[in-house]
């Protein structure tokens, strides 16, 4: 039942007063409209900085998460007994809601972007770790033996045979992690980490604002998803012939 907010003075107060107050003459942002094109056109540049911050949050968090998860996966690939505990540990980090994680970290790292990045990269660990381990495990034993027969060392087998063949799974994990991180990074504002959550939180009952900021986040997620898909296709040439 909430009536649109009416600014104190719109035009002259007089005979046309009632008409002035109607939504025909009010500026769109003072009405209940779903999307105000004029406002959006004039204010779109306000979203530049939050978008760049958001991009930085995502890229740094995923890069950090990938570095850690990939290293853990290589370690677990060599020492099999590490797999269950590492899966459980990354699983716990994945399960803890990011927003709770931000505030759990506050006493340790304080407010700011670092806190947001730590929580966001912790969230990506499980997805990337699990996919990398599965990808490495899916390499057929015969391929490994052929490589050994050709005289490759263990290190060469890992980097020249196993990791390249695990690329489809690794890229799939990276894609899921990146797209999810773009969405979750909107919550980084609660940790003082900036990003597209900042305008959403600042104008939380202004639909145009939410649609613009949310729309940028969705477009960013789709762009990352498509870019990683393209990268996967480029780096797995043998799959291009098979897949539809």
């Amino acid at each position, binding site marked *: 039942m909430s009536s649109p907010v009416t600014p104190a003075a719109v035009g002259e107060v007089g005979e046309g007063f009632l008409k002035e107050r109607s939504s025909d003459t009010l500026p769109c942002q003072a009405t209940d409209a779903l999307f105000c094109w004029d406002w959006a056109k004039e204010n779109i540049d306000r979203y530049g900085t939050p978008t760049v911050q958001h991009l930085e949050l995502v890229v740094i968090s995923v890069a950090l998460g990938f570095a850690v998860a990939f290293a853990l996966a290589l370690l677990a690939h060599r020492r099999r007994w590490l797999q269950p505990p590492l899966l459980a540990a990354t699983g716990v980090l994945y399960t803890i809601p990011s927003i*709770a994680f931000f505030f759990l970290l*506050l006493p340790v790292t304080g407010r700011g972007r670092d806190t947001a990045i730590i929580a966001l990269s912790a969230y990506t660990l499980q997805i990337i770790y699990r996919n990398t381990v599965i990808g490495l495990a899916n390499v057929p034993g015969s391929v490994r033996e052929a490589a050994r027969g050709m005289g490759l060392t263990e290190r060469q087998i890992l980097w020249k045979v196993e990791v390249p063949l695990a690329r489809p799974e690794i890229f799939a994990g990276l894609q899921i992690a990146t797209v999810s991180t773009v969405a979750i990074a909107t919550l980084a504002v609660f940790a003082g980490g900036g990003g597209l959550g900042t305008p959403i939180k600042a104008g939380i009952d202004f639909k145009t604002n939410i649609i613009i900021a949310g729309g940028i986040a*969705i477009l960013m*997620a789709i762009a990352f998803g498509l870019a990683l898909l393209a990268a996967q296709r480029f780096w797995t040439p043998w799959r291009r012939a098979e897949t539809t």
Partner: protein
Amino acid sequence: MIATFLSLAPASIGGALEFIFTPQDSSVTGGKQVGGFDEVLELTLSQLELTLLALGLSLLVALPLGLYLGHRGSGELFAVVIGNVGRAIPELALIAFMAAAIGVGVLNLTIALAVLGIPPILANAFVGIHQVDRATVDAARGMGMTEFEILRKVEIPLAIPTLFAGLRGATIAIVATATIAPLAGVESLGDFILGENVYGSNGVLAGAIVVALLALTLEFAFAGLQRLLTSPGLKPRTT
């Protein structure tokens, strides 16, 4: 001066635990105490209720559709696209938009949260059923099972790990987002987390601890349920 300093005192684990178990004085509630076990329990149950309601709604919508499409083997593109697009939905924008567009309240928030749960459940139900070996399904059909029996006795048991992966993914997303329920006018543990001026920094930390514990408890509960529902013949020998 001293009072200001105290209210800005950094949170500590000890202080947060104290907040969970005993009511604390707050500087802005006019002498009314905040926190304590009763209030923590009340908000925890509120968040749990919200989570289960939304989860139930997303199951109701997504599970039958996913199972049906998976069994038919049609609509793969639809299921996969829904699954991928779902992951890209920014939680904060979704909650804020639903609150601004259709209003605040439990019902609207439940719908918004269910929107987050539908994609993983739908996509995993489709993939889980669809990837069941077609030879197995043909064998079941040859034994005279009806289509519904095939789904219930063959495909679903074989798809349990994938189905539960979707369910658990949905649960994590929903319980996490239920934390920002106060933005849509519904109480949850987010009241502590987002209400530092009322609950103090210890209250914020206490809220974060309880939210994390709630999410982990749900995860363990569903992992246990999955083990219970896994057919004895399919129990993995190694994990």
